[in-house]
């Protein structure tokens, strides 16, 4: 049991840190959160810089520990978040890499790495959120195409995406997990209509996508017909594994900023608030250690993240909400001003106990798959 990094890992960290110190000052200012075309260009530009410097592959073929270091260092240095590239780099890309044909990998992977194409995720539906396998969007074969009709919701970056990793029902008679197929759908195809959805934070962060007789070539199917559920699980296990490394680092930084703000505005003298900040320090230190534990475990298992990710997500999503509620205590009345820092973060943190499987679903996963309790209702 140790927390020391190998000389190779330390060397990777040092080189990355050096490169970040040179690369970051030249970056243009971040576009506003509302400006999606601007953010697309900005995020892809950053990905291109990573590509040219040799870091684009880090999410795909580096060891879990190297990826941990990459995320820790980029976040600590204040580098841009993966942003519009998220689905391509962390969901669709790894899925195609693992399950796609050689031709599919050649077609889709290089543009993701070079920051040329954006992907979005067409999984959730109005009637199938946490119960993802209840999805209804239908596809039937017509010659060399699938013809797709239905709708998707909570689709991040849909209006600026080139491709959608789409789950469709190809066999309505099969048990609900068995009749699903994974397709790469061009967002420019006739019959695709995107309608932005405004979140409670006021931003158009995601969209509804309506699909009316959209033709997707059979060649765009990844994995076998009706095997899409298994193909999808490849990506979801990642999301519940190491995907929050950068965010834990960011939360720890915010916590330090909160303490200094409280010291400067006099709120630090309130022992209740001070102890709350101390408690959050314990939470985020422990979550960081849990991340290191999970990464070490994944490394020991050949890179596959385990169900321990659900344990992490439960703790993290609630701690993040507590962090920004505490920020409101530090800010006082200014916490009602949308232009103050942390206020939008407080609003967006409300999604963390819902997105990627609600806390209630995660508790079922922990109880049934880790603790072995019986399935029920």
């Amino acid at each position, binding site marked *: *049991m140790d927390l020391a990094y190998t000389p190779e890992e330390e060397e990777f960290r040092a080189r990355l840190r050096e490169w970040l110190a040179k690369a970051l000052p030249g970056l243009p200012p971040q576009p506003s959160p509302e400006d999606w075309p601007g953010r697309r260009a900005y995020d892809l530009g950053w990905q291109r810089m990573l590509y040219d410097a040799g870091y684009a592959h880090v999410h795909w073929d580096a060891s879990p520990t190297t990826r941990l270091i990459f995320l820790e260092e980029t976040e600590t240095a204040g580098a841009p978040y993966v942003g519009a590239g998220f689905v391509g780099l962390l969901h669709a890309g790894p899925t195609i890499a693992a399950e796609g044909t050689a031709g599919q990998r050649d077609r889709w992977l290089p543009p993701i790495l070079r920051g040329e194409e954006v992907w979005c995720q067409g999984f959730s539906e109005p009637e199938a959120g946490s119960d993802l396998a209840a999805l209804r969007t239908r596809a039937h074969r017509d010659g060399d195409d699938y013809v797709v009709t239905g709708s998707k919701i909570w689709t991040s970056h849909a209006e600026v995406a080139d491709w959608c990793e789409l789950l469709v029902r190809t066999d309505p008679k099969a048990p609900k997990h068995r009749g699903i197929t994974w397709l790469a759908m061009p967002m420019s195809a006739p019959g695709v209509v995107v309608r932005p959805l405004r979140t409670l934070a006021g931003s158009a962060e995601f969209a509804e996508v309506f699909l009316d007789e959209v033709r997707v070539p059979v060649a765009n199917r990844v994995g076998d017909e009706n095997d899409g559920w298994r193909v999808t699980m490849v990506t979801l296990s990642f999301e519940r594994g190491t995907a929050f490394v950068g965010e834990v680092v960011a939360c720890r930084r915010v916590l330090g900023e909160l303490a200094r703000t409280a010291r400067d505005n006099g709120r630090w003298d309130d022992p209740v608030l001070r102890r709350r900040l101390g408690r959050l*320090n314990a939470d985020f230190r422990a979550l960081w250690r849990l991340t290191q534990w999970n990464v*070490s475990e994944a490394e020991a298992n050949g890179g596959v993240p385990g169900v321990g990710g659900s344990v992490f997500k439960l703790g993290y999503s609630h701690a993040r909400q507590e962090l920004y509620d505490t920020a409101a205590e530090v800010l006082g009345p200014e916490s009602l001003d949308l232009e103050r820092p942390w206020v939008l973060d407080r609003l967006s943190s409300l999604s963390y106990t819902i997105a990627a499987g609600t806390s209630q679903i995660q508790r079922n996963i922990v109880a049934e798959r880790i603790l072995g309790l019986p399935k029920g209702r």
Partner: protein
Amino acid sequence: MRFQLSEEQRALRAGMRELLVRRFDGDVLRAAVAEPRLDRALWRELGAAGFFALRVPEADGGVGLGLPETVLAFEEAGRALLPGPLVATHLAAGTVPGAAEGETVVTDVDGGGLVEWLEEADVVRGDAAAAVPLKSVDPLTPLHRVPGAHGGAADPVAVLLTAAEQLGTATRACELAVQHAGTREQFGQPIGAFQAVKHLCAQLLVRAETARAAVYAAAVTGDPMDIAAARLLADEAAERGARDCLQVHGGMGFTWECEVHLLLKRAWVRARRSGGGAESEESLAAGLLA
């Protein structure tokens, strides 16, 4: 970075668990409640197994291991609800004759002014002259109180080993809750099939596993902030875990016969030792400005 137990650490933990299952299982625990005396034979057996001398250098006749191994041993002690001034005796090994071998039972006056097992101890560290007995809430931890005692800053190793014991108790609470939820039937099915019960069990595990990462990391780094965080989370995992375990057991959990109350009461006793609660929160807060 290999933040996982090594083979040797697994073996040490398994050996400790085996010894405690053989010598101090649930039946012995309940029998001990009826007649709470320190089991000197068991104490010597622990000494022979190296429990107290784990961190004493080999040159001085000890085992020569480090904090991570010690934390694993104390976690097992906490899991078995092993009674006695374990932390104080462990800390005295190498300085108080006989402590390392389990021949001498050592207790201390805690910074909070409480003394555990005063009458059974051979050596008391600190001034316990004015100690008055309490009717202890935990039937397996006799307590005295020393009015006006100020222990100064808590020993970080003692704080960490207390956290390790709490972690073990939290783990036991989770195991007992899951076992009961999986076998106790109501409304025609195991109660663990009901989400309300299932979610209590899941949160038991989430708190225990988060505390585990914090406790093990603190044992590796020895960093005071890591130790404070570990203690805070382990106290909570044990106290809330035992409480939730009691809730899962329903009416049965409220009886003296069911061992769950012993977990909760021990967790309360340990949480009162210095270095927990407000003390750790304040130092972690101060650490944010450092």
